[in-house]
């Protein structure tokens, strides 16, 4: 088998594997380390952290849909200080790049979380702006170019590592939001967060998740995610993109890379197969070598569309 190069460059970070984890689908890696060797991953994107611990929403917090999973967790997390004192030291020992995902309900909150991370040994910050903005009638930050810009600039002022803006697909023009994030100093983009959705239990007439509306993930949304990555890559070909949404196997990873992703995140698939990261990486190597492609990075954005 010829040697295949699966390393990728993600906004200056050289990752040995193109596979990273989707925030919220890998916790901080400790539980998953029983199933896979974390070194097989290009980076670990941890669960979004907030300034104070958040308790999350009432249960039920999830429902299955056709080829999808609807969740309304409510960003339950133990807060940035717990991350710094407990998760990060452990992660640092694992010798895998760490990307800290941060969240908040005000620009101020994002800034404060970022400030605590300023001198921490992390490789990048992912800013989860798919959070309601309490200062703007509960709209998500990621639904508005101004709010997006405000949060990214605020975080930008606090940290020196590259910033990835994690965008929501629930917008009319993803490229407009992407542009705002980039102009405000994001080094790259994470696409996509979950799709807003809802299920109702017909027998009880109750919403299936207590949060009423939740986020849809899994294979059902893959075509929506591929289109998002494609569209944004076409608009900003030089910007690194972490692509995600419904990845289940190595072919899905290639699909995202062809659409324009630099690295690909595994989300829901970890729940179904905790060894997914491992297996997909090995399948990727086989896929490329069987096709005599020497490097995954060279496939980036190579989908054949008429100019």
């Amino acid at each position, binding site marked *: 088998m010829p040697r295949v190069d699966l390393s990728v460059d993600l906004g200056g970070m050289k990752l040995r594997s193109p596979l990273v984890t989707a925030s919220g689908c890998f916790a901080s890696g400790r539980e998953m380390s029983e199933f896979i060797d974390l070194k097989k991953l290009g980076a670990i994107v941890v669960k979004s952290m907030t300034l104070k611990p958040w308790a999350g929403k009432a249960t039920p917090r999830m429902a299955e849909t056709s080829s999808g999973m609807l969740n309304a967790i*409510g960003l339950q997390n133990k807060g940035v200080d717990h991350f710094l004192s407990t998760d990060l030291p452990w992660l640092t020992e694992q010798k895998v790049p760490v990307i800290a995902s941060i969240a908040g309900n005000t620009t101020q909150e994002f800034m404060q979380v970022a400030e605590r991370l300023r001198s921490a040994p992390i490789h990048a910050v992912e800013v989860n702006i798919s959070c309601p903005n309490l200062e703007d009638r509960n709209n998500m930050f990621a639904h508005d170019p101004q709010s997006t810009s405000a949060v990214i600039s605020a975080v930008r002022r606090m940290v020196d590592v590259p910033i990835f803006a994690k965008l929501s697909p629930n917008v009319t023009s993803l490229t407009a939001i992407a542009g705002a994030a980039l102009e405000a100093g994001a080094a790259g983009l994470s696409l996509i967060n979950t799709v807003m959705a809802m299920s109702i239990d017909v027998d009880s007439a109750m919403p299936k998740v207590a949060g009423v509306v939740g986020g849809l993930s899994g294979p059902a949304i893959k075509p929506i995610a591929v289109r998002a990555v494609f569209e944004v890559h076409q608009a900003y070909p030089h910007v690194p993109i972490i692509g995600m949404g419904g990845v289940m196997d190595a072919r899905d990873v290639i699909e995202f890379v062809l659409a324009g992703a630099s690295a690909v995140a595994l989300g829901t698939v970890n729940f179904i197969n905790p060894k997914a990261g491992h297996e997909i990486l090995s399948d990727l190597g086989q896929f490329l070598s069987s096709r005599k492609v020497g490097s995954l990075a060279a496939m980036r954005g190579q989908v054949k569309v008429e100019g």
Partner: protein
Amino acid sequence: MAEILNHRKLGDEYHSLTIVAPEIAEAAKPGQFVNLRPPTDRSYLLRRPFSIFRVNRRGNVAATVEVVFDIRGPGTAALAAMRRHEPIDIVGPIGRSFTIPKTQHSCLLVGGGVGATPLFFLGEELQNAGKRVDVLWGAATASRLVAPIEAKRLGAVAAFTTDDGSEGHHGLITEVLGEMIERCGTEVIYTCGPRQMMASVTKIALEFGIPAQVAMEELMGCGIGVCMTCVTPVWNRDGTGIANVRTCVDGPVFNGARIAWDRYAKEEAAAALPAGN
């Protein structure tokens, strides 16, 4: 991938799958569960959690785990269609188990419906530890009592209740629980079943001043502690606050006294919390 060694019906309602899984069987403790992936249909994605009904570490095949379930939806329907010798994808054992009491001797197992499942494994281990075991099973109707004959063998005293009176006491478990406790000299209760039942069992146990270990059931996204789907509201040790604790790996067995039974679906207004994920 593990292999199905046997698939049998357990009474009219329940299916039993015996799965060859030596590592899981060796490590398993009562109250833990396995997370099975139903085959073939990729329109539903997630694994399904099942309590360990029994392990066999002594047979002339490799050690096995047995699960018992009834058909509730597409996943259990697919599992019910699986045959002997087919491969099955299994993760486990998962979660915190019941604990064998150090000082107390007389143990009462209280199972509601299919919730009785993990109590068989527990009962055997309690007996191995030299404890007295009594059994109280409740169900909607006789056919929904899990393995009643085995239950009779297991319990020094074995009692049943059914909502329709088709077997044992006509009514709820909680109507006979006090009497059982007195009759058996119960010192510790183990329970698994519908949430409302476990709440009542815990309340009665506390009235008698005895501990109740409860095995909670929650919808599970991952079953391995990473997604935060499955939380149970638990009082912290000093009773000053409530934390949402993962049922899959911090449970499923909890001290009943610590569970904030009245806090379900009563969290802070959803609107004040962020949407999604």
